[in-house]
């Protein structure tokens, strides 16, 4: 546990506070524009498609596909050290938006682009939980 506390922790801003509170409750919340029917990530004060401010939070399905990945052999901080090599990925949520994450519970030689994954959460501190994804068995 002590090693984890020196990982880089997100510092929420007014636009992102709800998202991080959702993560802490193990819910992946993404924004939905009621005006133009558009999902977006990361959280913003406007809809990037129609500029509307009428944005709601919705709980995402948690399903995603791998857009790209890399098996990292070194990290920015020793805090991540015990967990290397580790899979960094871009995933596209079923609802549309893309996000960066880790792929966990997956051997490095089993990962592939297009793989179906599902969200889970790692509790890094009492307040901060981070969404990561694991492979869905086909």
């Amino acid at each position, binding site marked *: 546990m002590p090693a984890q506390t020196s990982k*880089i922790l997100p510092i929420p801003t007014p636009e992102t506070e709800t998202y991080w509170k959702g993560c802490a409750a193990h819910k992946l919340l993404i924004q939905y524009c009621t005006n133009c029917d558009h999902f977006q990530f990361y959280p913003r004060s406007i809809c990037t498609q129609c500029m509307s401010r009428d944005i709601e939070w919705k709980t995402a399905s948690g399903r995603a596909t791998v857009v790209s990945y890399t098996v*990292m*052999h070194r990290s920015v*901080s020793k805090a*991540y050290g015990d967990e290397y090599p580790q899979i960094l990925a871009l995933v596209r949520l079923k609802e549309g938006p893309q996000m960066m994450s880790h792929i966990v519970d997956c051997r490095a030689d089993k990962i592939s682009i297009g793989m179906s994954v599902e969200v889970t959460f790692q509790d890094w501190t009492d307040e901060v939980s981070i969404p990561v994804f694991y492979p869905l068995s086909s």
Partner: protein
Amino acid sequence: MDSLRGKAVIVGSADTKVGVIAHMGATQLCVEAICLALEDAGIAKNQVDGLITCNSMADPYMYHAEMIAEYMQIFPSYCMSIGAGGGTTFTALHHAASAIATGTCNTVVIAMADSLRSGLSRERAMMMQSSSGHPQFESPYGPTVPAFYALIARAYMDAYGATEEQLAAVAVAMRTHAARNPEAQMRDLITIEQVLQSRMIADPLHLLDCSLVSDGGAAIVMMSAERAADMKQPPVFILGVGEGHSHEHISQAHSLITSAAVDSGRRAYEMAGLGPKDMDLAGIYDCFTPVVLIELEDLGFCGKGEAGAFVEEGNIDLGGLLPVNTHGGLLSHCHSGNPGSMFALTEVVKQLRHAAGDRQVSQAETALVHAQGGIMSSHCTLILGRDNS
């Protein structure tokens, strides 16, 4: 407004020593580069009325260009620092050309230097790396800069069937160029095997797929084409310039395999009235090997998915269809951070002056240089020529 085509020229151009330059700090390297470029141009510092720099990571100042002006006791009427990562250099040149064309100022110096190798502790260097990610939505996952580019490499290989050998061929070509350049940091020839056997950093990128970490700086002097007629050096004309900005963070990129180099390239070609086939050589940003393949395609030198074969066939070597980075590039000449692409620019100036010695591209008349900053985020393309026609 009229096109910028041919309005501004480069009349001075110089690099400091590069590689491991432990006896000079980043500010000192920047000032040294300016002194050398002014000397090359035959211009006194009191003639400089425009100054553009980029900030240093090793020796940062809140207002960097003002700091350099103060250090040198230059009193410009146009003064700013620009930060667009590796794309900064040519973006600065775009601003300078506009300032010259509109008469905002007459003689602009663009100077950039940093001491990434000697001026940053390993801890600070890693912190700088993590700060290139989005602080909330990327950095917590602990990515390094190579890992960001590895995401691009993997997507590119998956889309087009490109191979690790094709990525490695870029590193081999850059090293072969560097072997002809006595100023380059890494000059020992390498093989594709050696690239593939070098340590894996972020799969599929090996150590030798990644650019160097260096100290060094470079500067250029620009003025209007009319004023340049009487200068010491033959002018190098800015025939085209274009930018394209698609995102800041890689997780927000709309495509991992086609970049905003398509837009910057199109804008530069349109201004110049020229196309890829008119280029005698190029300077292509090569922070990591896959970037060269994607940029060669996006700038129209070959079709999508064809750059691997294009490189393997020797087309980017001296004597090839399009010699690329004849100085050795970021992979083998040096990479001092934001100033990195300055060296591709000063090399092209040398080539267009027909002063590149052993590595001269014969009858080089027109060249393209392209830089990108962030993680394939901010792109700027320049087309330079020996004459204005």
